[in-house]
């Protein structure tokens, strides 16, 4: 795959930039890391950027008059510029949070808890991650609103006819995942956002699994809110992003209160700082913003188009390889145009936990479980699945190792 004529990404060469992928683990051989949907590995330059921040300019941001504090502030805000540029979004409406989960909770609490009324509806899909379901369920239970679930077709796509009929006058929010972490499905979020807006509803796009893997243009998607997380895009844990409509964000009351987010505080009350800082209470994740900014530059240098083209090839190869394993069922779309390279599957007669354990003994890291998508698992009629998920550093070797380990696994458990 590294030598494809269609794009210029050389996965094998890129691996050299990821310490974890090139230094064998204690007592082990090569690691075939196929769990990037859970978290990506980090290139050396991201680690270096964070290290340099702590070594050279560590200081608290915003209020310091001394030079180092000003420099820390500059590096934090440069991180914001980078992520805003990556998704083509205004920087002042690009809010740093702890992760994607907190970005969605921010909207659920700052907007939903205040604005939802009895009888209102929040429409989510059956393939949402729990982080785009549970916050809505919590605020719905407080406000008397109802959370409805748009079904998923047997092919693993959002049932668009159902979506059309479920969006109505009571719908206040449509919250939908851009790329499913479990099925890999790429959803037509532009169409869904347009349908929701036509009905007067707001929209939340969970772009956690799309921003790391393909070009995402927040302006073109046009949603009121778009959330993603740093650690799945070569960045550190502890930082996420909410890209919101500037007007919505400006009109919303704060989520968390504290330092940094205020303009003035008196014994009578407080007034709010400008956006985005109004939504960033307390000391922000500074080193993390620096690391995420570096991750964005790394991704931009490779090119999001190239990453997507590479992963499309990986998806094709992975589907072919999994088809060679007897008794294996892949969930989600078969067409690589319509999916990312995150693939859930089950193996007749072998429990996903046992698959995960066996594959680990062969140096292949996959995830087993419900992938924080329990409503989807019930919808598919399974308790859990195994999931292999790729990234820009995934090679043919990884996929062959996966296939061979699965064939051996089936024999080991006597399912053959």
């Amino acid at each position, binding site marked *: 795959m590294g030598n494809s004529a269609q794009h210029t990404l050389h996965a094998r060469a890129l691996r050299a930039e990821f310490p974890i992928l090139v230094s064998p683990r204690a007592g082990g051989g090569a690691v075939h890391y196929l769990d990037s949907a859970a978290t990506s590995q980090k290139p050396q330059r991201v680690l270096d950027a964070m290290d340099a921040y702590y070594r050279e300019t560590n200081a608290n941001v915003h209020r310091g008059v001394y030079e180092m504090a000003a420099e820390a502030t500059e590096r934090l805000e440069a991180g914001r510029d980078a992520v805003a540029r990556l998704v083509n979004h205004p920087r002042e409406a690009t809010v740093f949070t702890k992760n994607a989960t907190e970005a969605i909770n921010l909207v659920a609490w700052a907007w939903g808890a205040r604005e939802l009324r009895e009888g209102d509806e929040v429409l989510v899909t059956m393939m949402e991650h729990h982080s785009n379901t549970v916050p809505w369920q919590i605020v719905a239970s407080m406000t008397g609103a109802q959370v409805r679930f748009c079904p998923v077709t047997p092919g693993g796509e959002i049932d668009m006819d159902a979506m059309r009929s479920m969006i109505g006058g009571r719908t206040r929010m449509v919250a939908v995942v851009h790329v499913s972490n479990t099925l890999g499905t790429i959803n037509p979020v532009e169409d869904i956002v347009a349908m929701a807006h036509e009905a007067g509803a707001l929209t939340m796009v969970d772009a956690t699994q799309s921003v790391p893997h393909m070009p995402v243009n927040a302006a073109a998607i046009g949603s009121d809110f778009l959330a993603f997380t740093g650690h799945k895009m070569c960045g550190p844990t502890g930082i996420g992003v909410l890209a919101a409509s500037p007007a919505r964000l400006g009109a919303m009351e704060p989520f968390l209160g504290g330092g940094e987010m205020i303009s003035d505080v008196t014994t009578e009350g407080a007034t709010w700082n400008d956006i985005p800082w109004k939504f960033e209470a307390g000391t922000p994740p500074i080193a993390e913003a620096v690391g995420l900014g570096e991750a964005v530059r790394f991704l931009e240098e490779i090119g999001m188009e190239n990453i997507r083209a590479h992963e499309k090839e990986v998806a094709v190869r992975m589907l072919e390889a999994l088809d060679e394993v007897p008794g294996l069922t892949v969930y989600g779309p078969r067409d690589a145009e319509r999916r990312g390279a995150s693939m859930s599957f089950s193996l007749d007669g072998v429990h996903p*936990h*046992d698959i995960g354990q*066996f594959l680990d*003994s062969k140096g292949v890291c996959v995830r087993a*479980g419900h992938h924080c998508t329990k409503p989807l698992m019930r919808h598919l009629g399974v*308790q*859990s699945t195994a999931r292999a998920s790729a990234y820009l550093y995934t090679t043919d070797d990884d996929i062959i190792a996966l296939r061979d380990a699965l064939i051996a696994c089936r024999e080991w*458990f006597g399912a053959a």
Partner: protein
Amino acid sequence: MGGLDDLYQQLILDHYRNRRGRGRIEGASASVHEHNPVCGDECYLDILVEDGRIAEIRADGDGCSISQAAASMLTEVAAGKDLDEALMLVEHFRLVMHGEAQPDEDLLGDAVALEGVAKYPVRVKCALLSWLALRECIADYRETVATGG
């Protein structure tokens, strides 16, 4: 694959492929349904108590090889025990799984083969699911008897 052989001893695979004591008991003295939220594994455990002894024990449900084999082994070793003995057995197994006791083969029967699971913290829950269900079952049974229900 030394590590894997430690974990998945032949006896475990044998119990997984040929489950003993599988199913439900009609008119059970006590029944418990446990599940492991991490993986969704489920276990239904039924006991029939006669003269203070476990006259019959059955386990049903779905799960990985470890959880299924552990349930199968439990039904063999717990059958016929009086309730206090059964509780001691469960406690011994629990300690073995947490690496706090050496396994007593006379007590555990085939379940001694699960010893290697202790080294895999995420799998300990799988092994314990049905065993802790038995503890729960006995507690429920005693409460029902005590309250005359």
